[in-house]
């Protein structure tokens, strides 16, 4: 292999993935595999398109659903790049028969259904293994495939509560409401792919595929290990402490000039405390009785926060960040999406990607956190429109005739538009 051609190779080229994922967690796993070069076929159906095609929360180009709204939402298009897309009615015997033919020629299946669905379709791991001994089934369950709560339905925000994060988040004097971001979903996507890669390595030795039984709830708790140890060691149940820290002070989020503008500041050492005092023009505070040591600063945080807020309040958040960073103090402006898009650092690192979507036009998307030196990951194709690659998958891969495909379309097993019921979001 020449150096030039090896540069072209992507890490997972040659693998085929069937992505049954819906919403965020499953499709994020499929996206990761697709980004890394696996031929990833997103499988939806006319009756059950990916719910984010329908529940788009208004995220359309210029806010307009337009024609074929199911292909036009940022919510679907941000999460399914580099995949091929087909429709297949898994509720119908003929649909499942075709799915099994795909299983026979694939390496990995990703799904994040509730744990009864695959079994109801008689597509649980033992049955899939009969079709393809090497198949790897990644089941991204809410709470795992076993246990008394395993059949419970949940979503990202509910898993933050069940997994322990919400109890630790919020102002000390007020219970935190439910917010619109869902951390457990992308985390689950990443862990599922880690497990797929582990299973692929295992398969190389044994020739055997595997079933991955992932619990998204456990995956959340696994990010809170020190609190579990605190409970084990000292019998203590950790409580929320807002923007404060167990150890550092000052440590918080301070109001800046302008509408809803804020900056986060954290002082890790006495040396940084000195730098902060100089930066805000208060050198007399450095050795002041109340603030000289980390523990005295910790005790007098309310006073500290007032002093710092007074300084930040008349300044721009980015200027505060830059000035404190020049002094050697950790500070970060609280970025909105608009700030993130304009940020010079993310631009310098080519973080954002412009992608031309068939029905949504040219849009800007967040890129990836990892920069790989030999196999840079890029968007090679936009998110498929519903059923966009039916022809390729059913004719070229499965070898169906034109008449067969027409028959599937006529009976609604495949198609390129959601059913009327699905379009109402009552799926």
């Amino acid at each position, binding site marked *: 292999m020449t150096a030039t051609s090896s540069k072209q190779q992507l890490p997972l080229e040659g693998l085929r993935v069937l992505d049954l994922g819906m919403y965020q967690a499953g499709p994020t796993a499929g996206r990761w595999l697709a980004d890394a070069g696996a031929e990833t076929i997103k499988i939806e159906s006319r009756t059950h398109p990916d719910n984010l095609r329908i529940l788009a929360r208004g995220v359309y180009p210029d806010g307009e659903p337009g024609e074929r709204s199911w292909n036009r939402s940022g919510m679907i298009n941000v999460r399914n790049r580099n995949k091929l897309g087909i429709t297949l009615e898994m509720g119908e015997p003929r649909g499942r028969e075709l799915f099994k033919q795909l299983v026979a020629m694939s390496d990995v299946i990703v799904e994040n259904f509730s744990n009864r669905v695959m079994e109801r379709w008689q597509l649980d791991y033992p049955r899939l293994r009969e079709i393809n001994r090497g198949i790897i089934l990644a089941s991204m369950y809410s709470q795992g495939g076993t246990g008394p709560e395993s059949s419970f339905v949940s979503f990202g925000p509910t898993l933050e509560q069940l997994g322990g994060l919400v109890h630790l988040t919020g102002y000390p004097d007020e219970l935190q409401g439910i917010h619109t971001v869902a951390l457990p979903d992308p985390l689950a996507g990443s862990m599922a792919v880690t497990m797929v890669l582990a299973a692929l390595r295992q398969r190389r030795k044994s020739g055997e595929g595997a079933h991955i039984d992932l619990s998204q709830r456990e995956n959340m708790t*696994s990010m809170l290990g020190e609190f579990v140890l605190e409970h084990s060691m000292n019998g203590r149940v950790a409580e929320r402490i807002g923007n404060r820290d167990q*150890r*550092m002070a000052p440590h918080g989020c301070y109001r800046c000039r302008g509408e809803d503008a804020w900056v986060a500041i954290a002082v890790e050492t006495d040396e940084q405390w000195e730098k902060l005092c100089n930066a805000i023009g208060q050198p007399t505070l450095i050795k002041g009785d109340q603030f000289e040591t980390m523990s005295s600063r910790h005790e007098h945080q309310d006073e500290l926060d007032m002093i710092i807020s007074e300084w930040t309040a008349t300044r721009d958040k980015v200027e505060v960040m830059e000035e404190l960073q020049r002094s050697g103090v950790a500070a970060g402006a609280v*970025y909105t999406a608009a700030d993130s898009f304009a940020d010079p650092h993310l631009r310098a690192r080519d973080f954002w990607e412009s992608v031309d979507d068939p029905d949504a036009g040219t849009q800007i998307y967040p890129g990836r956190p990892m920069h790989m030196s030999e196999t840079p990951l890029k968007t090679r194709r936009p998110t498929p429109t519903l059923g966009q690659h039916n022809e390729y998958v059913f004719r070229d891969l499965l070898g169906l005739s034109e008449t067969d495909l027409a028959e599937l379309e006529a009976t609604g097993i495949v198609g390129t538009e959601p059913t009327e019921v699905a379009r109402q979001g009552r799926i």
Partner: protein
Amino acid sequence: MSRPLDGVVVLEMGEGISAAYCTSVMATLGADVIKIEASSGDPSRRLGPFPEDILHLEKSGLFLYLNRNKRSVVLDLDDAAGQDALRALSSRSSIVVENFAPGYLAERGLGYEALSRDQQTLVMTSITPFGQDGPYRDYRATEITVFALGGYMSLIGDRSRAPLKFGGSVAQYTTGLYASTATLTALHLAEEAGMGQYIDISVMESMTSDHSQDTMDYSYRGFVRERESSRVPIPCADGFISFSVQAHRYEDFRRLILGDRAEAEEADDAVARDQMRMEGDLDTEILQWSYDKSKYEAYLLAQDAHVPAAFVADMSDLVESPQYAAREYFVEIDHPEAGTQLYPGFPARLTGADWQYSAAPLLGEHTEEVLSELTELSAGMVAELAATEVA
């Protein structure tokens, strides 16, 4: 039983959470993770929590959790002999993971260029707050400041109060997890096609790529999403629950809350299309239903009625969770200094593999063992390196 990463040697040169969590995942999956520490130890050894709050380098809960299943080797990376030993170890490794400040290792002749010279299929991953280049490369960062820059913070909290960070250090954990996925992706290529590579991964970009509703709102329609706090969890006798009701579950939800009255009173179709209104509409009734039930009981009743529900779980709820118990999620690990403690296990199971847990290493516990086993260094040199005074 075998484990999927058996035979993979991983060198970890890290401090704190992100690199340690990255390699902790690999260690559970079977990799032989060798943690390089300075003689003063990983700073997380000083962060606690500690039993009875007494600082002890071998008893930090954070360190013990993040470093189980690993071996500890103490090397002075400022010293030529330490650098030689490090290079000798990396030439026997498949993976190097580090989270020093950009340039730190290269200045000591331990960057990717140097380490890959002797091991061409090496996968080396650097985890930093901002990445290896760009204007913020050398910015200082802690969990809260990079969480703010990563765009999460502006979405969490009350509109009338300061934006909030998530509890704990989830930005660093998250980046560590992403780094493990990226590194194993590259390992796949290294083992299949003999191509190594360098991976630069940053906390800021991990955060910015994570939450997409707000970035898509802005990209697609120029709309800047503000933090919301409209749906506060519902009080129960001993805590809080919440519902996540979609349109097709509205009837189930009404039956749960209203009981027999659900049949008698007509549901408003417009309400059923709007999650906020669905719950708002029944505010009083929900409280009447919930106030005398325990959070766990209310959660079970709702889920039995097919209504997606959750309760706000604290650490004691999790430790006592029947679901976690049934899956044996928590594990007991015995440590010579810290005793037997309860730890989170691993969040995934894999057919044909079995996870095992050994306690986090004492500082420098394996210096001699690892250097003799994996390098050609003379016995005298190994003894000299192993004799370094620790902390």
